[in-house]
């Protein structure tokens, strides 16, 4: 029989003589050809260029301010990435950020204990996400529809709770609540630490756990997953619930950071979140990308916005620039996929 022995790996699964080098070469080659590597290099160049034209950009205080400004987008992008990796999309994250923040703030304002209010706020996001997931999987709705509906519901629910009046006082534990989003640990703003934690947890979850692998697998071939016994519906529901939960967490921190519970918090942010995910290399078709890329995607948007301010460029142009970057990023991804399939 024909035998395709072309490598040097031994039968025990460990690289054999010479195999270690080839294994590392292969992994390194994979990384160098990856979208994440390309976008990280692009970000590095952007970082250097902006600093040359606007030296104030490199100041630590400015960099921390920029990091804090995109931290909520990047962290929420981790949850959005889970959904997009399964081949879906969640348009409700921005409104859920606003709603969960309002709900938590309103409960605190009415005297509820901090931990209970936080728990209810977080659960509200998870339940809203789960509902979207159930409609996508069990009612076979295109993801756009239930999440668009949830966007509207969450926004209106936030307005209804407060009757349109923003929450500005947070009860007896106000100081503790506000310190969650406004505080620092070792000089680093809490939201930045939160963002880094979310990216780390998201990376470990997606790369190292069976559930994370299943999310990639579903994005790659949902039918194959179902045939091999993977609970596709449950995993998709989990992804939407996790996205809602993370959006709620970001929304609560944003409310804390701004000391303001308002329905407009996070409104429209779903577009920035999706943009960060796409620029970061997560394929809208599902199955490809990483949360490290989402961090870089959010950072690119944050840095460009800051640079335009520092260089005195009209803020009205920001949307145009970000728009072109999104289109360019997707175009780049298409070219990369085309090259891969050509090989």
């Amino acid at each position, binding site marked *: 029989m024909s035998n*395709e*022995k072309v490598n040097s790996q031994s039968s025990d*699964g460990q690289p054999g003589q010479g195999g270690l080098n*080839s294994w590392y070469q292969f992994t390194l080659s*994979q990384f160098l050809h990856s979208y994440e590597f390309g976008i990280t290099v692009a970000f590095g160049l952007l970082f250097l260029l902006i600093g040359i034209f606007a030296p104030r950009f490199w100041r630590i205080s400015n960099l921390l301010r920029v990091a804090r400004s995109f931290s909520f987008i990047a962290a929420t992008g981790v949850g959005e990435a889970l959904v997009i990796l399964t081949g879906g999309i969640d348009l409700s994250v921005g409104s859920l950020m606003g709603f969960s923040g309002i709900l938590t703030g309103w409960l605190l304002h009415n005297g509820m204990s901090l931990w209970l209010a936080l728990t209810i706020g977080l659960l509200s996001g998870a339940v809203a996400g789960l509902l979207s997931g159930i409609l996508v999987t069990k009612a076979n709705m295109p993801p756009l529809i239930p999440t668009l509906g949830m966007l509207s519901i969450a926004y209106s629910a936030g307005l209804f709770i407060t009757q349109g009046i923003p929450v500005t006082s947070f009860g007896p534990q106000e100081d503790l609540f506000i310190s969650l989003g406004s505080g620092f640990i070792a000089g680093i703003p809490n939201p930045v630490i939160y963002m880094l934690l979310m990216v780390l947890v998201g990376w470990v979850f997606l790369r190292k756990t069976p559930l994370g692998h299943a999310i990639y697998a579903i994005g790659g071939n949902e039918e194959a997953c179902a045939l*091999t*016994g993977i609970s596709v519906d449950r995993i998709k529901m989990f992804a939407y619930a996790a996205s809602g939960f993370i959006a709620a967490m970001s929304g609560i921190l944003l409310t804390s950071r701004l000391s303001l519970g308002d329905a407009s918090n996070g409104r429209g942010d779903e577009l920035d979140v999706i943009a960060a995910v796409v620029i970061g290399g997560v394929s809208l078709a599902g*199955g490809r990308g990483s949360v490290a890329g989402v961090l870089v995607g959010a950072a690119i948007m944050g840095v460009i916005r800051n640079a335009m301010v520092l260089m005195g460029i009209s803020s009205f142009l920001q949307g145009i620039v970000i728009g072109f970057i999104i289109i360019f990023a997707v175009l780049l991804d298409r070219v990369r996929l085309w090259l891969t399939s050509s090989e």
Partner: protein
Amino acid sequence: MPLPLFFKGVALNSKYQDSINSAIVRMEGITKTFGGLTALDNVDFVLRESEILGLVGDNAAGKSTLMKILIGAYSTTKGQIYYRGEPVQIDNPHDAHDLGIEIIYQNLALCDNLGVAENVLLGRWPRKWGLFVDSAAMKNKTHSVLDRMGISIQSLDQEVATLSGGKRQTVAVARAISFDPDVLIMDEPTANLSPEASDHVLSLAQSLREQGVSIIIITHRLSEIFGVTDRISVLRRGKLVGTVTTSEVTEDDVLELIISGKRRRKTE
């Protein structure tokens, strides 16, 4: 219970009795209707221990329907399946899997975005500390499956999308083999493959037969399976019109069965 005939007009003979005695799978009187359409009409089908059986027929002959019944994707309208001589109920693919019956679909059902090892053990990734995927164990297990097949792939991390058609087929076979099946159904395994890759896949089937796996190859390509099959069963318009021993017939004989449902020489 009266024993069935493979096709009308052929008396029960000793070869048929041998078939039943050595059968790992026996499907008796299988009928399947979809509304008013009869897809399978009283089909009797036998797969022996450690043989490669070619299942051939024109389009809409009922090949895929018969195999979907065997793997539990379809229920029967009438008929009984026996596995190792015992009557069994196969209501879904899990039941077939539990019995040791696996199928490799024509579209291979691979996740192109995942690596080789992840595809081979799709959904059954070994765990470390209960929470994490044990990559080393996953690769070890994949290696042992590939070793059993006499195959090695450059890197088990390599994305399946970047593999050739033959190697993709190899990954699909490896996944089926990882379940340690007794019966393996290969649906058009050489479709869209180059002649070299087809040879490779068919030699893989022979190797598995030597290891005791009973294999059914569904195909349109008669010339390819003549070199590897022990017997060939022919379906025509939902009826099994003959089962022949490959070494005793020519391609023209089988072609005649496929076209007219009759054959000059006697079938089993």
